[in-house]
Protein backbone atom coordinates (compact mmCIF):
# COMPACT_ATOMS: atom_id res chain seq x y z
CA UNK A 1 0.00 0.00 0.00
CA UNK A 2 1.21 3.52 -0.80
CA UNK A 3 -0.02 6.78 0.69
CA UNK A 4 0.55 10.29 -0.62
CA UNK A 5 -0.73 13.39 1.13
CA UNK A 6 -1.19 16.75 -0.59
CA UNK A 7 -2.05 19.86 1.37
CA UNK A 8 -4.53 22.28 -0.22
CA UNK A 9 -5.75 25.63 1.06
CA UNK A 10 -9.01 24.30 2.48
CA UNK A 11 -8.34 20.61 2.94
CA UNK A 12 -5.84 17.74 2.65
CA UNK A 13 -5.97 15.09 -0.05
CA UNK A 14 -4.80 11.61 0.92
CA UNK A 15 -4.31 9.23 -1.99
CA UNK A 16 -4.13 5.54 -1.15
CA UNK A 17 -2.92 2.89 -3.59
CA UNK A 18 -3.30 -0.87 -3.05
CA UNK A 19 -4.79 -3.06 -0.32
CA UNK A 20 -6.03 -1.76 3.02
CA UNK A 21 -6.10 -4.84 5.28
CA UNK A 22 -5.02 -5.68 8.83
CA UNK A 23 -1.38 -5.51 7.74
CA UNK A 24 -1.59 -2.05 6.14
CA UNK A 25 -4.48 -0.33 7.98
CA UNK A 26 -2.17 0.90 10.81
CA UNK A 27 -0.08 2.71 8.17
CA UNK A 28 -3.22 4.49 6.91
CA UNK A 29 -4.18 5.29 10.50
CA UNK A 30 -0.74 6.83 11.08
CA UNK A 31 -0.98 8.98 7.93
CA UNK A 32 -4.42 10.29 8.97
CA UNK A 33 -3.22 10.88 12.56
CA UNK A 34 -0.40 13.08 11.26
CA UNK A 35 -3.09 15.36 9.82
CA UNK A 36 -5.52 15.36 12.74
CA UNK A 37 -2.70 15.77 15.29
CA UNK A 38 -1.72 18.87 13.31
CA UNK A 39 -5.25 20.26 13.62
CA UNK A 40 -6.22 19.46 10.02
CA UNK A 41 -9.66 17.90 10.06
CA UNK A 42 -10.91 18.45 6.51
CA UNK A 43 -9.69 15.43 4.61
CA UNK A 44 -10.42 13.89 1.22
CA UNK A 45 -9.50 10.22 0.84
CA UNK A 46 -8.82 9.42 -2.83
CA UNK A 47 -9.67 5.73 -3.24
CA UNK A 48 -9.37 5.51 -7.02
CA UNK A 49 -6.55 2.96 -6.84
CA UNK A 50 -7.55 1.10 -3.68
CA UNK A 51 -8.08 -2.55 -4.59
CA UNK A 52 -9.44 -3.82 -1.31
CA UNK A 53 -10.63 -2.65 2.14
CA UNK A 54 -11.21 -5.00 5.08
CA UNK A 55 -12.93 -4.22 8.38
CA UNK A 56 -9.55 -3.08 9.75
CA UNK A 57 -9.52 -0.35 7.10
CA UNK A 58 -13.12 0.59 7.83
CA UNK A 59 -12.21 0.91 11.51
CA UNK A 60 -9.48 3.45 10.71
CA UNK A 61 -11.90 5.49 8.59
CA UNK A 62 -14.68 5.52 11.19
CA UNK A 63 -12.24 6.48 13.96
CA UNK A 64 -10.90 9.31 11.80
CA UNK A 65 -14.42 10.47 10.98
CA UNK A 66 -15.26 10.62 14.70
CA UNK A 67 -12.15 12.74 15.34
CA UNK A 68 -12.77 15.07 12.39
CA UNK A 69 -16.45 15.70 13.07
CA UNK A 70 -15.93 16.64 16.73
CA UNK A 71 -17.06 20.24 17.34
CA UNK A 72 -18.04 20.38 13.64
CA UNK A 73 -14.43 21.21 12.83
CA UNK A 74 -14.31 19.13 9.66
CA UNK A 75 -14.90 15.72 8.18
CA UNK A 76 -13.40 12.86 6.19
CA UNK A 77 -14.98 12.55 2.74
CA UNK A 78 -14.40 9.69 0.32
CA UNK A 79 -13.71 10.09 -3.39
CA UNK A 80 -13.80 7.62 -6.29
CA UNK A 81 -14.65 4.57 -4.19
CA UNK A 82 -14.55 1.43 -6.38
CA UNK A 83 -17.85 -0.48 -6.64
CA UNK A 84 -16.88 -3.56 -4.59
CA UNK A 85 -15.49 -1.41 -1.78
CA UNK A 86 -18.61 0.78 -1.85
CA UNK A 87 -20.66 -2.40 -1.38
CA UNK A 88 -18.56 -3.26 1.70
CA UNK A 89 -19.35 0.20 3.15
CA UNK A 90 -23.02 -0.50 2.41
CA UNK A 91 -22.91 -3.91 4.11
CA UNK A 92 -21.37 -2.33 7.21
CA UNK A 93 -24.06 0.35 7.25
CA UNK A 94 -21.44 3.06 6.71
CA UNK A 95 -23.09 4.88 3.79
CA UNK A 96 -24.92 7.44 6.00
CA UNK A 97 -21.70 8.18 7.89
CA UNK A 98 -19.63 9.51 4.97
CA UNK A 99 -20.05 11.78 1.96
CA UNK A 100 -19.08 10.05 -1.29
CA UNK A 101 -17.85 11.89 -4.39
CA UNK A 102 -17.36 10.62 -7.95
CA UNK A 103 -14.36 12.83 -8.61
CA UNK A 104 -11.54 14.48 -6.69
CA UNK A 105 -12.33 18.02 -7.81
CA UNK A 106 -15.85 17.86 -6.38
CA UNK A 107 -14.57 16.31 -3.15
CA UNK A 108 -11.88 18.96 -2.64
CA UNK A 109 -14.36 21.67 -3.66
CA UNK A 110 -16.83 20.52 -1.02
CA UNK A 111 -14.73 22.19 1.69
Amino acid sequence: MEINTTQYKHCDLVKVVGRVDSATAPQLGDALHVLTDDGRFKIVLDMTDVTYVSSAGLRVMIDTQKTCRQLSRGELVLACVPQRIYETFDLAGFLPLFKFFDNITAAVGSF
Partner: protein
Amino acid sequence: MTASYPARFENLARIIGLVTQAAEIVGLNEKATYAVQIAVDEACTNIIEHAYHGEGNGNIECTCIPDQDKLTIILRDQGQAFDPNGIPLPDTTACLEDRHTGGLGLYFIKKLMDKVVFEFCPSNGSQKATNTLTMTKRKETSA
Protein backbone atom coordinates in the same frame (compact mmCIF):
# COMPACT_ATOMS: atom_id res chain seq x y z
CA MET B 1 -4.79 -27.04 -2.57
CA THR B 2 -3.40 -26.72 0.94
CA ALA B 3 -0.78 -24.38 2.32
CA SER B 4 0.32 -23.39 5.81
CA TYR B 5 1.44 -19.89 6.74
CA PRO B 6 2.83 -18.32 9.91
CA ALA B 7 -0.07 -16.40 11.48
CA ARG B 8 1.13 -12.90 10.66
CA PHE B 9 -0.76 -10.02 9.03
CA GLU B 10 1.94 -9.71 6.37
CA ASN B 11 0.91 -13.19 5.11
CA LEU B 12 -2.73 -12.19 4.50
CA ALA B 13 -1.95 -11.18 0.90
CA ARG B 14 -0.37 -14.62 0.24
CA ILE B 15 -3.38 -16.48 1.67
CA ILE B 16 -5.71 -14.26 -0.37
CA GLY B 17 -3.59 -15.08 -3.44
CA LEU B 18 -4.19 -18.81 -2.89
CA VAL B 19 -7.98 -18.50 -2.51
CA THR B 20 -8.15 -16.15 -5.51
CA GLN B 21 -6.43 -18.81 -7.60
CA ALA B 22 -9.00 -21.37 -6.42
CA ALA B 23 -11.87 -18.95 -7.18
CA GLU B 24 -10.56 -18.64 -10.74
CA ILE B 25 -10.54 -22.44 -11.12
CA VAL B 26 -14.20 -22.60 -10.04
CA GLY B 27 -15.05 -19.66 -12.29
CA LEU B 28 -16.51 -17.41 -9.60
CA ASN B 29 -17.27 -13.96 -10.96
CA GLU B 30 -15.46 -10.83 -9.77
CA LYS B 31 -18.08 -9.97 -7.12
CA ALA B 32 -18.07 -13.47 -5.60
CA THR B 33 -14.27 -13.57 -5.69
CA TYR B 34 -14.11 -10.27 -3.79
CA ALA B 35 -16.58 -11.68 -1.23
CA VAL B 36 -14.34 -14.74 -0.71
CA GLN B 37 -11.27 -12.51 -0.33
CA ILE B 38 -12.97 -10.38 2.34
CA ALA B 39 -14.27 -13.44 4.22
CA VAL B 40 -10.86 -15.16 4.27
CA ASP B 41 -9.07 -11.93 5.25
CA GLU B 42 -11.48 -11.35 8.16
CA ALA B 43 -11.30 -14.99 9.26
CA CYS B 44 -7.49 -14.98 9.28
CA THR B 45 -7.45 -11.65 11.14
CA ASN B 46 -9.76 -13.14 13.77
CA ILE B 47 -7.46 -16.18 14.09
CA ILE B 48 -4.40 -13.97 14.65
CA GLU B 49 -6.14 -11.58 17.06
CA HIS B 50 -8.48 -13.90 19.00
CA ALA B 51 -7.21 -17.49 18.65
CA TYR B 52 -3.46 -16.73 18.80
CA HIS B 53 -3.73 -13.38 20.68
CA GLY B 54 -1.15 -11.79 18.40
CA GLU B 55 1.17 -12.38 15.49
CA GLY B 56 3.72 -15.18 15.24
CA ASN B 57 2.11 -17.53 17.77
CA GLY B 58 1.23 -20.36 15.37
CA ASN B 59 0.21 -21.22 11.85
CA ILE B 60 -2.88 -20.88 9.69
CA GLU B 61 -3.52 -23.80 7.37
CA CYS B 62 -5.63 -22.95 4.35
CA THR B 63 -7.23 -25.63 2.18
CA CYS B 64 -9.16 -24.72 -0.97
CA ILE B 65 -11.46 -27.26 -2.59
CA PRO B 66 -12.60 -26.03 -6.00
CA ASP B 67 -15.71 -27.82 -7.23
CA GLN B 68 -17.86 -27.48 -10.33
CA ASP B 69 -20.44 -25.28 -8.66
CA LYS B 70 -18.79 -24.06 -5.48
CA LEU B 71 -15.58 -23.20 -3.68
CA THR B 72 -14.97 -24.58 -0.21
CA ILE B 73 -12.31 -23.03 1.99
CA ILE B 74 -11.12 -24.61 5.23
CA LEU B 75 -9.01 -22.63 7.69
CA ARG B 76 -7.38 -24.41 10.62
CA ASP B 77 -5.47 -23.04 13.59
CA GLN B 78 -4.19 -24.38 16.90
CA GLY B 79 -5.06 -21.33 18.95
CA GLN B 80 -7.61 -20.79 21.70
CA ALA B 81 -11.09 -22.19 21.04
CA PHE B 82 -13.16 -19.66 19.15
CA ASP B 83 -16.85 -19.37 19.97
CA PRO B 84 -18.60 -17.29 17.29
CA ASN B 85 -21.72 -17.11 19.47
CA GLY B 86 -19.75 -15.09 22.00
CA ILE B 87 -19.21 -12.26 19.51
CA PRO B 88 -22.07 -9.74 19.40
CA LEU B 89 -23.17 -8.64 15.94
CA PRO B 90 -22.40 -4.98 15.21
CA ASP B 91 -25.18 -2.40 15.15
CA THR B 92 -25.02 -1.28 11.52
CA THR B 93 -27.58 1.48 12.04
CA ALA B 94 -26.12 3.38 15.01
CA CYS B 95 -25.15 7.04 14.60
CA LEU B 96 -21.45 7.93 14.20
CA GLU B 97 -20.79 8.58 17.90
CA ASP B 98 -22.26 5.21 18.92
CA ARG B 99 -20.73 3.23 16.09
CA HIS B 100 -18.43 0.39 17.17
CA THR B 101 -16.62 -1.75 14.65
CA GLY B 102 -16.05 -4.85 16.80
CA GLY B 103 -17.65 -7.96 15.31
CA LEU B 104 -17.69 -6.49 11.83
CA GLY B 105 -15.31 -9.16 10.48
CA LEU B 106 -17.51 -12.05 11.61
CA TYR B 107 -20.58 -10.20 10.32
CA PHE B 108 -18.94 -9.90 6.87
CA ILE B 109 -18.04 -13.62 6.85
CA LYS B 110 -21.64 -14.64 7.62
CA LYS B 111 -23.13 -12.18 5.13
CA LEU B 112 -20.77 -12.86 2.24
CA MET B 113 -20.44 -16.65 2.31
CA ASP B 114 -23.21 -19.16 1.59
CA LYS B 115 -22.28 -21.59 4.35
CA VAL B 116 -20.11 -21.01 7.43
CA VAL B 117 -19.31 -23.69 10.03
CA PHE B 118 -17.06 -23.22 13.07
CA GLU B 119 -15.79 -26.35 14.84
CA PHE B 120 -13.38 -26.91 17.71
CA CYS B 121 -11.61 -30.22 18.34
CA PRO B 122 -9.97 -30.50 21.78
CA SER B 123 -6.48 -31.99 21.93
CA ASN B 124 -6.41 -35.75 21.64
CA GLY B 125 -3.13 -37.56 22.28
CA SER B 126 -0.59 -36.21 19.82
CA GLN B 127 -3.31 -34.18 18.03
CA LYS B 128 -3.29 -30.50 19.07
CA ALA B 129 -6.55 -28.69 19.82
CA THR B 130 -7.78 -27.24 16.53
CA ASN B 131 -10.26 -24.62 15.36
CA THR B 132 -11.68 -25.45 11.94
CA LEU B 133 -13.65 -22.92 9.92
CA THR B 134 -15.32 -24.23 6.77
CA MET B 135 -16.77 -21.66 4.35
CA THR B 136 -18.50 -22.25 1.05
CA LYS B 137 -19.27 -19.88 -1.80
CA ARG B 138 -21.61 -21.23 -4.47
CA LYS B 139 -21.22 -20.26 -8.08
CA GLU B 140 -24.91 -19.91 -8.89
CA THR B 141 -25.52 -17.34 -6.14
CA SER B 142 -22.53 -15.27 -7.12
CA ALA B 143 -24.33 -12.95 -9.54
